[in-house]
């Protein structure tokens, strides 16, 4: 076992997959600069720079995957998937169904996501609920280096399209590229356990749709993904000091969703608090409420999510994103 940062784990898992399988190729904007090490090792044919043409290169990833490659298309930020949504929504997600299950699209879309570094509402959305709405795409959002490497390994091995979302606060590469820009005059609320952690010596795939229990409690279940899980863990720690015992369930993938884990834990605690950095309405948090109802569970329920366009102003940005104080307040209300 060794320690790695979130970004190192991703690069290491990519390198392992690329060394093992010639069909794995990377393309995206700026990859020679952003993926300098992979570019040096695997050459320009397998680490290929693209024009700023998201609809073309995401569409090309679909075609390349259909024709035998295992492409990893980098979008820089998931916000930009809106430019190329057709490739993902109408093609990558549909081909297997349209072909009667005879033709798969083994591609990975890799993108930064999430806020807290002050880039405004067009550059720090989560969008996982929006994407997960479409059948035929898997969506993962790892919260630790070990999960990042393991889930990426699974994503590359998967025979269908997977959107791999790296939180911009966790990945030092993205955060430096987009937020700090080499400045020492700015600081961010970065969860230490997400930024750096123990990783295995060799990457093994982590199955999608399997939640990780980060903490076991008896009064309520807090569920979420990504940075939200770290905020939830901190909130749970503080809640424990006032006698409130919370489970923290890291869903790890939004689609597939580990509904059983949520139903099982909430069946025990009787309360669900969803922490979601994506938009509140029509998303993951509502899906989890539906999951409980469909399972016949009667539970108290609350959610801490993003309710509108994320403000640029860092103070209001922080307030708009799920933060520890909001989670604690919501948990206390659930206990009333």
């Amino acid at each position, binding site marked *: 076992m060794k320690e790695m940062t979130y970004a190192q784990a991703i690069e290491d898992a990519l*390198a392992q997959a690329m060394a093992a399988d010639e069909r794995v190729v990377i393309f995206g904007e700026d990859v020679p600069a952003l993926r300098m090490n992979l570019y040096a090792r695997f050459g320009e044919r397998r680490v290929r*720079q693209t024009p700023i043409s998201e609809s073309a290169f995401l569409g090309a990833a679909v075609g390349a995957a259909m024709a035998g490659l295992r492409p990893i298309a980098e979008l820089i930020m998931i916000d930009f998937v809106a430019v190329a949504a057709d490739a993902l929504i109408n093609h990558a997600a549909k081909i297997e169904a349209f072909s009667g299950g005879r033709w798969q699209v083994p591609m990975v879309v890799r993108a930064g996501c999430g806020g807290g570094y002050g880039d405004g509402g067009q550059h720090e959305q989560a969008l996982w609920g929006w994407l997960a709405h479409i059948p035929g795409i898997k969506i993962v959002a790892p919260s630790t280096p070990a999960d990042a490497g393991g889930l990426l390994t699974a994503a590359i091995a998967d025979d269908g399209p997977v959107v791999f979302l790296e939180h911009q606060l966790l990945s030092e590469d993205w955060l430096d590229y987009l937020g700090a820009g080499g400045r020492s005059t700015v600081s961010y609320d970065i969860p230490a356990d997400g930024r750096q952690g123990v990783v295995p010596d060799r990457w093994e795939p982590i199955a999608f749709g399997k939640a990780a229990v980060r903490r076991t409690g008896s009064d309520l279940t807090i569920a979420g993904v990504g940075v939200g899980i770290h905020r939830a863990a901190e909130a749970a720690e503080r809640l424990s000091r006032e006698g409130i015992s919370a489970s923290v369930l890291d869903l790890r993938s939004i689609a597939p969703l580990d509904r059983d884990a949520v139903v099982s834990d909430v069946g025990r605690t009787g309360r669900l608090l969803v922490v979601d950095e994506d938009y509140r309405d029509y998303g993951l948090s509502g899906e989890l409420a539906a999951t409980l109802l469909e399972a016949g569970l009667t539970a108290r329920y609350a959610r801490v999510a993003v309710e509108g366009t994320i403000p640029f102003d*860092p103070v209001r940005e922080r307030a708009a994103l799920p933060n520890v104080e909001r989670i604690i307040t919501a948990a206390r209300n659930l206990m009333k």
Partner: protein
Amino acid sequence: MVFTGGWWFAGNRKERNMDLDSVALYHKMLTCRRFEEAIAVLWHEGRISGEMHLGIGEEGINTGVLDHLGDDDAVALDHRGTAGMVLRGVDLAAIVKECIGAADGLCGGMGGHMHLFSKGHLAASSGIVGAAGPTACGFALAAQHLRPGTVAVAFFGEAAMNQGMLMEAMNLAAAWELPVLFVCRDNGIAITTASASVTGGDLEVRARGLGVLGKTVDGADVEMVWRAAGEMIDRARGGRGPSFLRATCTRPEGHFLGDPLIRIARSPLVELKPRLGPLATATTSAGGAPIAQRIGSLGRITSMLGRTARSKLGPAHDPVKRLRKRLAITSDALVTLEQEVDLMVKGAVDKALAPVTATGEEASQ
């Protein structure tokens, strides 16, 4: 001088500018330069969060084009829209406040520098590359219906030319004979990628292929930009359809402040040190490309850094310095003008920073 409505802002005149006034152009360009330099200081001080894309080096293009616009003309800007807003006559202090996220900023602190909007000036920005094209088409369509004789201008970089939405917008503008000027600020680099390495064909020819009149000028020569843009805007006003102006430029700060390649070029020892170990390990790891390809990759990385190191705003590429040399004005008048600009910018920044309203509550009351 009152900086919220100076005589020299075309945006505040009912009639558009008919004559080339080099001194006025210089005043505008210098205002943009000093203003963006002041914003860069705020960013480096950590008062501005996130990315910061400035148009230093592009003053000749922004000024040479926008000098022709009148009050009812519309502008679609990209993520690099600060200077465009200045040139449309938007209050400088309101822009600074927006950049720091103040509740009384231009957009209430909601947008930040990448998402500057001024409805009163029909000026909108977007952080999505290429998005200015379709927006300008819509502005131009509204102009045809509601404000005949007015035009819309779209600003974007050469890398945006590879976005489908921009190519589609150019075709739409041609098909509908929209009064649009597409302005391509070409610094040759798409974020950190050499544009030539990811672009097929010639951009001017591409525009012509879509039925849009195209021309290329030296963006460091504001007078050349001014003349070319003037003809194209006249054409659009006269209902003779869209044009494409490609203007070359050099941006000393690259894509954004803190551009990783520029940082390496400026402080190679500090910036390269943490990168060299992993790079050497990766290059010599078993599994991967043949050695010749790996050496090729390293060579391209080196030349990318070399290209960045050479990309400086020398006197020949600096639109502000170039025009300054040509001004028919006494040195006293020039000094006065420059002091005036400095004071105006400093006044705006001081005004923006003076009250503690960055968090908003008291300002919104």
